[in-house]
């Protein structure tokens, strides 16, 4: 059984190596089939492991140490994998969602000449993500962590013909790299303190009190920074919307389902450490809260379909961080799973739509599409419902409900004097849920209802339709594994990932549940009034551009929107980038000037010296004779004087 664990990673890695080694001999379609098959094999291997796990054939955690990576006095690192429920859940998400997206991509990328490269990068990404998920050593995890970043870079900039795309790719990499460096510093701090980065050993050291509070808080904050950058949370959020420049399957897999949730996974994995670092938790919760609201507001005023989904991803990740911040890492993980399903579904639907309307991404230029693509419409609506957390029938409802109830009870402690109120956070999260329903149903109504503005061509191929169906199914039913205690006492997920945390579900007021259920419905209703009715308030293309429509007079959101529209951190990042280059250029110039000056001085001294020397070396015999005599005179004088 243990031998199967590395295989999970090996399949996609092998596919990558084959695709790249073939040097273009494996063309798009076969590369796609190869890649999909590899990820499928990976999923199957994961399935076998899970089966063994369920049947008790494998006791967890299952550790496989492949080899020792480095060993120096006072530190050692290994390339080692570990399988426990949390990583099993992540494997399931990565491989199953990954498989469906790969399948979809065979159809989506069929016409692209560089699709072999695309599939090579995608499988490399899956391999790196699996390394990240499986690693039992934080340094080994860091391989996967940076690996996914690299693949993200390669895939965002996949269509490199447009400089905007490569710029977006670089921006994504730079911003996450800043977080990575912070994380690396956190790793160094812990490595110095504990001589190893083995996760189990580390958590043991935390519980045993071997680490000083300063080290724990410091490393927790540094790791948090890395995670925030990876998950595009404030203040690192600006790269994710730009990352939509990549092909849609990439956006679905990397920038919705898996990579951006790596930070959530890391923090869930290290929840023991963070539990001991209360300020980090409070900061996490606050950032999650802030991000989910700001991103939701921003999503509300975007007009680009993929960007709306990107902001929505940031917002949903904010929910996860909020949950992590109040200590409900199970809830965060559960939301991660459901979010992976419905967000992947939404992205794939968006891809299907965009592919058929001639790569138009502006929702105001679409409309009435439900008549041309009923299947896609159904899938999108299911996804939207799950995102908005429509009660009972969607997976998103259960996971969001879990978060909300956890937040209600949570009390993040920033300092002993300053405790965030869980109820306040709950209110914010609920308002976020309202905004979520608003913006996603705004999309639904603008894109699928009303008059046609663009007539779609072609049809959605089955390789693209099948994944949509599967994901729609998952988006509806995956939530059934965990339900609030008031509806049904089903707690399969919590039991699975955290058997020890049984005291997680005390009874709470029913109105909490009701509020959580009604809010999305209300949001959808408002959206219907504003954008959906036969005589809607706004469905014309906004004149102002930049995504604001005349929602603004209707909703008192002007202020928030104004903030988010300007995307301050993005400006800051741009300014920082500009400053970097400017200072670099200045240093170059200064260096040149300094060198020039030095060279001039040297040359001047040299010239002055040379004049004398040249006088001496003019090739005239008489001068030479003169010099000889002068030398003679000097020698004689010296001899006589001394």
């Amino acid at each position: 059984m243990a031998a199967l664990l590395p295989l999970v990673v090996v399949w996609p890695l092998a596919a990558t190596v084959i695709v790249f080694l073939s040097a273009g001999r494996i063309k798009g379609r076969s590369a796609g089939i190869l890649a999909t098959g590899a990820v499928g094999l990976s999923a199957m291997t994961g399935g076998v492991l899970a089966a063994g796990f369920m049947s008790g054939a494998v006791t967890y955690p299952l550790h496989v140490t492949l080899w020792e990576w480095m060993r120096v006095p006072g530190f050692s690192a290994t390339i080692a994998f570990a399988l426990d429920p949390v990583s099993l859940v992540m494997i399931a998400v990565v491989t199953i969602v990954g498989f469906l997206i790969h399948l979809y991509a065979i159809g989506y990328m069929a016409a692209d000449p560089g699709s072999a490269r695309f599939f090579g990068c995608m499988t490399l990404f899956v391999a790196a993500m699996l390394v990240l998920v499986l690693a039992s050593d934080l340094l080994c995890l860091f391989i996967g962590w940076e690996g996914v970043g690299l693949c993200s870079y390669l895939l965002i900039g996949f269509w490199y013909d447009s400089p905007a795309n490569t710029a977006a790719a670089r921006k994504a990499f730079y911003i996450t790299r800043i977080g990575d460096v912070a994380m690396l510093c956190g790793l160094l701090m812990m490595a110095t303190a504990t001589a190893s980065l083995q996760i189990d050993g580390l958590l043991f050291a935390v519980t045993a009190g071997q680490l000083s509070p300063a080290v724990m808080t410091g490393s927790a904050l540094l790791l948090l920074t890395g995670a925030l950058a990876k998950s595009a949370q404030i203040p690192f959020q600006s790269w994710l919307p730009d990352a939509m420049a990549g092909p849609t399957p990439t956006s679905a897999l990397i920038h919705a389902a898996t990579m951006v949730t790596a930070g959530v996974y890391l923090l869930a994995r290290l929840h023991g450490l963070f539990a001991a670092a209360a300020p980090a938790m409070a900061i996490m919760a606050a950032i999650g809260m802030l991000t989910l609201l700001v991103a939701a507001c921003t999503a509300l005023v975007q007009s680009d379909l993929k960007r709306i989904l990107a902001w929505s991803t940031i917002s949903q990740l904010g929910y996860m961080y909020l949950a992590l911040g109040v200590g409900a890492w199970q809830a965060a993980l559960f939301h991660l799973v459901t979010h992976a399903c419905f967000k992947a579904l939404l992205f794939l639907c968006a891809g299907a739509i965009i592919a058929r309307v001639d790569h138009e991404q502006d929702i105001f230029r679409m409309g009435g599409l439900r008549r041309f693509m009923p299947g896609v419409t159904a899938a999108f609506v299911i996804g939207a419902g799950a995102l908005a957390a429509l009660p009972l029938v969607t997976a998103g409802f259960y996971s969001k409900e879990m978060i909300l109830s956890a937040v209600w009870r949570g009390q993040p402690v920033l300092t002993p004097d300053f405790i965030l109120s869980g109820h306040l956070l709950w209110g914010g999260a609920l308002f976020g849920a309202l905004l979520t329903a608003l913006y996603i149903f705004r999309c639904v109504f603008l894109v699928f209802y009303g008059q046609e503005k663009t007539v779609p061509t072609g049809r959605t191929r089955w390789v693209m339709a099948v994944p949509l169906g599967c994901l729609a199914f998952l988006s509806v039913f995956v939530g059934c594994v965990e339900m609030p205690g008031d509806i049904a006492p089903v707690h399969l997920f919590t039991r699975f990932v955290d058997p020890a945390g049984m005291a997680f579900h005390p009874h709470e007021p029913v109105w909490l549940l009701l509020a959580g259920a009604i809010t999305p419905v209300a949001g959808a209703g408002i959206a219907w009034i504003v954008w959906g009715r036969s005589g809607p308030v706004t469905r014309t293309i906004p004149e102002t551009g930049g995504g604001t429509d005349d929602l603004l007079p209707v909703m008192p959101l002007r202020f928030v929107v104004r903030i988010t529209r300007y995307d301050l951190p993005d400006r800051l990042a741009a300014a920082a980038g500009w400053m970097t280059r400017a200072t670099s250029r200045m240093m170059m110039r200064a260096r040149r000037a300094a060198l020039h000056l030095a060279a001039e001085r040297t040359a001047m001294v040299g010239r002055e010296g040379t004049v004398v020397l040249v006088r001496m070396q003019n090739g005239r015999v008489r001068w030479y004779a003169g010099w000889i005599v002068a030398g003679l005179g000097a020698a004689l004088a010296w001899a006589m004087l001394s």
Partner: protein
Amino acid sequence: MTAFPFNAALLLAALLFSIGLAGVLVRRNLVFMLMSLDIMLNAAGLVFVAAGARWQDASGQVMFLMILALAASETAVGLAIILCLHAHGRPSLDADTGNLLRG
């Protein structure tokens, strides 16, 4: 024979040498430079001979002979070069014009 004092010989040699030196330095014509050189060589020879006479040693005159041989060959070669230069379009025999490493 009237004796020539040793110190006087040295004085004479030094003056002769300086005159020859000044000649070498001041004349630009190669012929005159050669002549001045000969004067300097003679000055050196004079010192040798005077020293030989002072210490009653034949070595001084041997050295004088050597200087003579040196002067002979030097003059021969020098004059040959002068002739060569003259034939190659340097009729002025200006020593200062030969400062470039070209024929």
